[in-house]
C-alpha cells in the first residue's frame, strides 16, 4: 500500500496521522521518498518549537537533493524521532512507520484542509506523468 487510506496528506508530500490523544504524527510519503532516492540525512525540528502551517520545519537530504519538510498544521512540536536521524534509510524502507515529528495542533480546523488518500494518489500520479 503506497498511499494508506487512513492517513491525511499535504500537497508537499507529507503524510499526517491523527492520534487518539489529539496530536498528529508527520512523515513523508512513499512517493516522496521514491522521488528523493536514498535518504542520507535528516534534520528534525526541536521539541517545543511553535510552527505555522506550511512553515519549513525539517530537512531531508538524499543522495540526490535536499528537500524541505513543511508543518502540515500549526501548533507545537511535541516529539521528534531520533530513530530516523540515526537511521535515515528507514524513511526509504518503511516511510509510513518512519515518522519524523509530532505536532499538537493549535487550530484543528486546519486538518480539514488536508488531502485524503484518493486526492493525494491523484496528485502523486500527475507528478509522475
Amino acid at each position: 500500500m503506497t498511499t494508506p487510506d487512513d492517513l491525511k496528506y499535504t500537497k508537499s508530500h507529507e503524510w499526517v496521522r491523527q492520534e487518539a490523544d489529539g496530536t498528529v504524527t508527520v512523515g513523508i510519503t512513499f512517493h516522496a521518498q521514491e522521488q528523493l532516492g536514498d535518504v542520507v540525512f535528516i534534520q528534525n525540528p526541536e521539541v517545543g518549537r511553535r510552527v505555522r502551517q506550511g512553515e519549513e520545519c525539517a530537512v531531508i537530504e538524499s543522495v540526490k537533493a535536499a528537500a524541505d519538510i513543511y508543518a502540515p498544521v500549526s501548533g507545537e512540536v511535541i516529539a521528534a524521532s531520533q530513530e530516523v536521524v540515526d537511521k535515515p534509510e528507514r524513511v526509504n524502507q518503511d516511510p509510513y512507520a518512519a515518522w519524523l515529528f509530532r505536532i499538537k495542533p493549535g487550530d484543528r480546523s486546519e486538518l480539514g484542509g488536508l488531502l485524503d488518500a484518493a486526492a493525494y494518489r491523484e496528485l502523486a500520479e500527475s507528478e509522475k506523468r
Partner: protein
Amino acid sequence: MLKQTPLNAVHRGMGAKMVEFAGWEMPLHYGSQIEEHHRVRRDAGMFDVSHMLAVDVCGQGARAFLRRVLANDVAKLEAAGKALYTCMLNEAGCVLDDLIVYCLAEDRFRLVVNAGAAEKDGAWLRRQRDRLAPALLLEPRRDLAIIAVQGPRAREKTWSAAPALRTATEALAHFQAEEAGGMMVARTGYTGEDGFEIVLPAGGAPGLWRALQEKGVAPAGLGARDTLRLEAGMNLYGQDMDETVNPLESGLAWTVDLKPGRDFIGKAALEEKPAARQLVGLVLLDKGVMRGHQNVLCAAGAGEITSGGFSPTMNRSIALARVPAGVRPGDDMKVEVRGHWLRAKAVKPPFVRNGKVLIPI
C-alpha cells in the same frame, strides 16, 4: 527526443529509474543507489557508459597529431595497448574535455570522450585535423557500446561471464588495453576500484550484460557512478572543470605534460601565469550534505563547491571545491549549506581507493 544506448531496453526491463543525462536517457539507479555503490566497493558492479563516445584517430602521423591536441603526452604510450588520461585544451588553456586515449597501433589511437562534450570535441578535432594533419581519419564510433565492470571482484567475474577474454586480459596492468574477440578491454575505470571497461559492438552489449549479471555483477546507475568517482577524487567534466578554467586550477596538473620540446594547444597560455585557484577535497565535520555551487570560506579567501554529496563509504559528506591557491590539506574551511555556515576540513583527494578510506577524520 533523448538518445538511447543499446542497453536501454535491458535497463527498463530491470526497473531502472531512467533520467536525462547529457541528452541521453540513462539509468539513475535500479532500486538503491547506495546499495549499488557498496556493491562496487565490496564486490563487483557494472555501468552502461555507452553514451560516452569512442573516436578513432587513424593514419600515419596520428601520434604526432595527438601530441599537439592533448595536454598529456601520448609519447608515453610507447607500445600498443597503453592508455593515458588527459585533457584537451583550447588556445586559452581551458578544458574542452577530459578523456582517455588508447594506443591500439602506431597508426590507430582511440579517444573515449564525454557524452556531453562529444559533438563539440568532434568539431574541434576535425578543425585541428584539417589544419595540422589533413590526411588523418577521425572516426566517431557510435556503432560501439561500453560496459564498465568495476570492483575488487570485477575481473574474475568478467572472466567467468566471458571465459574467452581471460587469456587476452589476465596480464593487463592498470591503464592497459587489449583487443580480443572484436572487443577492446581496458583495465581502467571511474570508481577508484579495479576492473575493466569493455568496448564492444552495440549488438553484443545486451548479451554480455546478461552474462555478467548471471555471474553476480550488480547493475549500477549514474547515481552510484557519481558517488564512486567523487570518493575516488575524480573530476566530472562540466562540474569540476569546463571551458572557463584550466587544468592547473582543476586538480589536473599531474595530467599536463609541460616538459620542454613539445608544443600543444593551450601550453603557452598555461605557462603565462601561475594558477590563482586550485581544486581541493573537503570533508564536512558538521552534519549535513554539501552540494555543488555552495559557497566556501577560509583564511585564504572565498571559493565554491564544484561537486558535493554524501559518501556512502565514509558515511559523511564530501566535496571537491575550487578555492584560492594558498589552501593546504588540514586547513579549516566553512561551507554555506542552506543558510548555515558548517565546518569542513580541506583534504587531498582521493577520499577512497580500492575499498579503503584514505582520509583520517
